[in-house]
């Protein structure tokens, strides 16, 4: 362990989360690494009321893609070959978190310096997780409706605002 690592361990302000990189949200409004999956929501190209709920499990790389009304995605159709929604989801995750963090989470072996996530995935089919992922998306959106607070919130001294990436 280096002296830098020791200092990191004993710092109250040690940084843990790399700030996400801003990306366009129109096509993929929601991506998260949670519950052992890369999961998110992809807007339908044809119907503004419809979204696709897509996920890839960590470890097994099981694919799932359904509409918010729980209809199976025609592109994936229960197979192990990624549809366009899953590809858009993976692209958005790589843009938002960087390839290394996504690969670590999914346990995907990427060649050094490669940012092609699919080359490190051995995809299989996975059970439908649309309901869980969609409710996670709704929880995410619900943050925008939480009333602002003027409480002093002393613990935010531990959470400085994200610095410029440099």
């Amino acid at each position, binding site marked *: 362990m280096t002296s830098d690592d020791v200092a990191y361990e004993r710092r109250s302000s040690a940084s843990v989360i790399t700030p996400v990189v801003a990306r366009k949200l129109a096509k993929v409004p929601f991506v998260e690494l949670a519950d052992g999956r890369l999961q998110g929501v992809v807007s339908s190209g044809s119907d503004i009321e419809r*979204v696709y709920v897509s996920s890839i499990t960590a470890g097994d790389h099981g694919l799932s893609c359904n509409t918010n009304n729980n209809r199976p995605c025609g592109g994936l159709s229960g197979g192990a070959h990624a549809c366009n929604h899953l590809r858009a989801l993976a692209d958005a995750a790589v843009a938002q978190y960087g390839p290394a963090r996504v690969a670590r989470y999914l346990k995907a072996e990427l060649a050094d310096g490669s940012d092609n996530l699919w080359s490190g995935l051995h995809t299989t089919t996975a059970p439908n997780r649309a309901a869980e992922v969609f409710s996670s998306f709704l929880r995410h959106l619900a943050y*925008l409706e939480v009333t602002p607070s003027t409480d002093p919130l002393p*613990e935010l*001294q531990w959470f*400085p605002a994200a610095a410029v990436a440099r």
Partner: protein
Amino acid sequence: MLTDALTTAPTGLTEALTLVDGLDDALVQGLARIDEERAAALASFAAAFAGSPLGGRVADATGKIIAGTVTDEHLATLAGARTALLGAAHDALQTGLDTALGRSRAPWEATAVTDSGQLLSGSRSWLRELAIAGWRGVDHDLAGGAAQAVQSLLAAPGSRRLAVLLDGFAAELRAAAPVATLPRIPVRRWADLWSRALLLSQDGFASSEAVPVDGRLVILGADLHEHPTVFRVQAHALLEASDGTVRLVRTSVAAAKVDTISGPSAWRMLTAFPLLRGVLAEHRTVEVSGMALTPAGDLIWDESRAAAGEPADPFAAARVRLGSALGAATPPLDRHPAVLAEPVLLEGYAHAEGAFDLGGGVTVALDLDRLPAAGPLTPALVAASTACLGLLRWDGRWLLQPLAVQALVRKKPVVAHGGDWALGPTEPKAAKAEAAAGTAVDVLRERAGRLLRK
């Protein structure tokens, strides 16, 4: 002289932190697996409290935990004892700094008001599971285990403080899970967040009564805070009362957000506070009437009790008034070196690598990780500065977080303040980037409008 505080460490500080480290290290492997080395560290931790009012309870709690019994009461005792040690460290550091700056500070005398929470058991049980498993034992399931507790706390008025803390802490654990394969662990940080959350999860956590005040508020600088689901601006200011007293106060507004809203566009989440954003961007004073001030020096911002005043230069105000302003006391359970954030004005320094050279061989390191993307301050501006308004913080050593600088750039004077972009970036390139990124807020609001409540 400030240099006195920067060069002299308080007596006993290292020893206190070593005891804290012993407890923190036990939380890495978890309290269910205490080996001999960790047991010895916990025993010395307990021994340090011998003869104090906490002595008996700490000895009992550590003894039971080493023997393999971990109850909520034992954990609360450990968290309380850790808070007491760090509180003592806080006091010693603050006293040293106050003496060096010649700053007087009001004593803590507040009436405690407590309300019992009904929503705290979910939070306590998650924190207990964490302590038992240890950071190394945190997998995806355990990291996600606070979601229910956070949702109910966010929905309840009055429990925002714990909700925001738990949500930020849980987000870090989720990002780090499975922690067993993480190359290095933020040992002190997670123990800090864990023990603060555990104390806030106890029934009857004391808060104190605020009193209405009138006066003129001169903002010295804006400090920005953020985690994936919160963005907060906290202004440090001088409150000039009609009787001529000048107090150092803080006032803040926080908005819930999501991780994809960050950088300058995060200000868009604070549209409920146009007056505060305006006075920050335009460097105006604020006339406050009947705004509530807590004994901790926190002014509870209320736009209906504020009016924008004249433009005022924070540097000029600091030169005249900061030296004699009265500081506020920190509430007993909030005391921790990490909450130290003491406004100072530095001038006449030379530049050293990542530091200001104050002369006489004394330097103060710059906290450049606290230059937010949501404001105009950059390391280059700080390196070109001739005067700096900042916050002195302590994290293993004293650090200066710049809040505003006067600088010479290509021989022209430039001034930049952390809150300058409160109404949007003032620099064309940043404004263009913000306009593109800011659509994220609109996209998500549109999606929320269409999909929520269906």
